[in-house]
């Protein structure tokens, strides 16, 4: 039996005055890739950010690897180390001087009080290994401001895998890439998933990709509309409930 990596119970999150996510419950097992789908404004990013403790929740519980996420969003540091998160748009100030090596290294660090030179060799070795695995070793000394969109995504994957993780949370991770870049990104992601045994929770707008790759789908439109295998959750009836009947007719025509 697979271990439960993430368990969300009756989660409700408010954005200003309205419930952006209401009474959502689901769980995620190790090695399983789950996609969250739904129209714009359905609360997908809100859900993910509440699971990570970035947004406060109104009610409900979140358990990651059996440990509760506190109401203020704090989680035992040892559990935090097991999660990696890639935001929808990794927008940063390009004037910040930072190399790829430094960015990937931040994924390795435990981010408490620590001497900057602690475990220097081990850290450097882990950074190099991670960059080799995403085929970006040649970028190690490059400044992150000079990376292309595809290179940035690969470097961010190295940031995720520089330490062993159990849960990867992606918010439309390939956003901003062209068709080829997106396909390369998913190829690399699923290769790494097989190697690392990651459980993945990802927000996606690409229903064809979800159908091809994901094990489970959660349909969300503020409340949880349905969940199950892609065949079940992405059936015409369920899609029509999530996106509206117009959308389903459009998809059938194309």
């Amino acid at each position: 039996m697979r271990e439960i990596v993430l368990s969300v119970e009756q989660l409700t999150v408010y954005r200003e005055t309205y419930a952006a996510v209401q009474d959502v419950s689901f769980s995620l097992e190790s090695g399983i890739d789950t996609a969250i789908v739904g129209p714009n404004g359905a609360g997908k990013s809100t859900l993910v950010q509440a699971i990570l403790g970035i947004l406060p929740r109104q009610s409900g519980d979140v358990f990651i690897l059996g440990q509760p996420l506190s109401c203020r969003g704090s989680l035992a540091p040892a559990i935090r180390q097991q999660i990696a998160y890639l935001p929808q748009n990794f927008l940063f100030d390009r004037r910040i001087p930072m190399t790829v090596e430094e960015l990937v290294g931040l994924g390795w660090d435990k981010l408490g009080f620590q001497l900057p030179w602690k475990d220097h060799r081990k850290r450097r070795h882990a950074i190099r290994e991670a960059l080799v695995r995403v085929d970006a070793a040649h970028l190690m000394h490059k400044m992150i401001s000079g990376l292309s969109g595809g290179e940035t995504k690969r470097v961010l994957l190295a940031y995720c895998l520089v330490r062993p993780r159990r849960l990867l949370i992606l918010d439309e991770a390939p956003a901003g890439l062209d068709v080829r870049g997106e396909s390369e990104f998913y190829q690399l992601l699923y290769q790494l998933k097989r190697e690392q045994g990651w459980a993945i929770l990802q927000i996606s707008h690409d229903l064809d990709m979800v159908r091809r790759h994901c094990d489970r789908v959660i349909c969300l439109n503020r409340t949880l509309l349905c969940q199950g295998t892609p065949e079940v959750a992405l059936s015409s009836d369920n899609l029509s409930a999530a996106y509206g009947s117009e959308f389903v007719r459009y998809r059938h025509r194309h």
Partner: protein
Amino acid sequence: MTELTRIIELFQLPFMQRALLGGILTGLMGGMLGSFTILRQLSFFSDALGHSALLGISIGLLIGINPSVVLLPFAVCFALGVTYLLERTRLWTDALLNIIYSSSLAIAVIVLSFVGQYKGGLNNLLFGDILAVRELDLVFSGLLLIACTVFIGLTLRTQMLLTLHEPLAIARGVSVSAQRTAFIVLLSLVVGISIKAIGVLLVSAFVVIPACAARLLSRTFTNYVVLSAGLGALSAVAGMLISAAFNLPSGPSIVATQLVIFLTTMALPQLRALGHG
């Protein structure tokens, strides 16, 4: 030669030595915290804090407490108050800071009109007097430098991630508000302690200019922070020497030196290109 002897003799005087050491300590602290301040777009915060400090000083004078004693608690309260306001209101940071500092300045001038003629003179408040730095000031500055180094040193990676991408840092369990408050408090202490030497008008230069020069020279974040602190100290030493050599006001001489260093770093790529050409 006689000029050099005169400068050497000048730096044998205890008040000049204290001024030099005070300048170095301020340069190191300002440069170190300044490197994060400019990336987090808080440069205007240090400027506003400097200007508003005049209010703290004038209140001190009105109630008969030494301005140096009032400055640090005032700076910390001001910083915490501004941080609270910035988090609570939906206004733009620079607009809000402008409201706060111009009104503080206005109230300070009104309060000063009740105090009558301040014997230290308004000039010293505005531009500082690094030659009046006492041993106790140096002890405070030294302790604050240690506090800044320990804080930045031990949380360097957290500060880096927080500066680069806040949501990524929160997802890793970093408490943004705690880190932000700690940084702002340290920055306000550095600005507060530097005002006596450099004055309310020039204090933000110590935070902003060396950091900008270091940014132009750096490829890695760690080098950038170290270089920023180094350039802060270097400009203090060079500025004090120039001030002694040409008998110029000390604080402004240091700031002018910082500007020269900054302009040089801006021109370096062109100079290198010329050299290769």
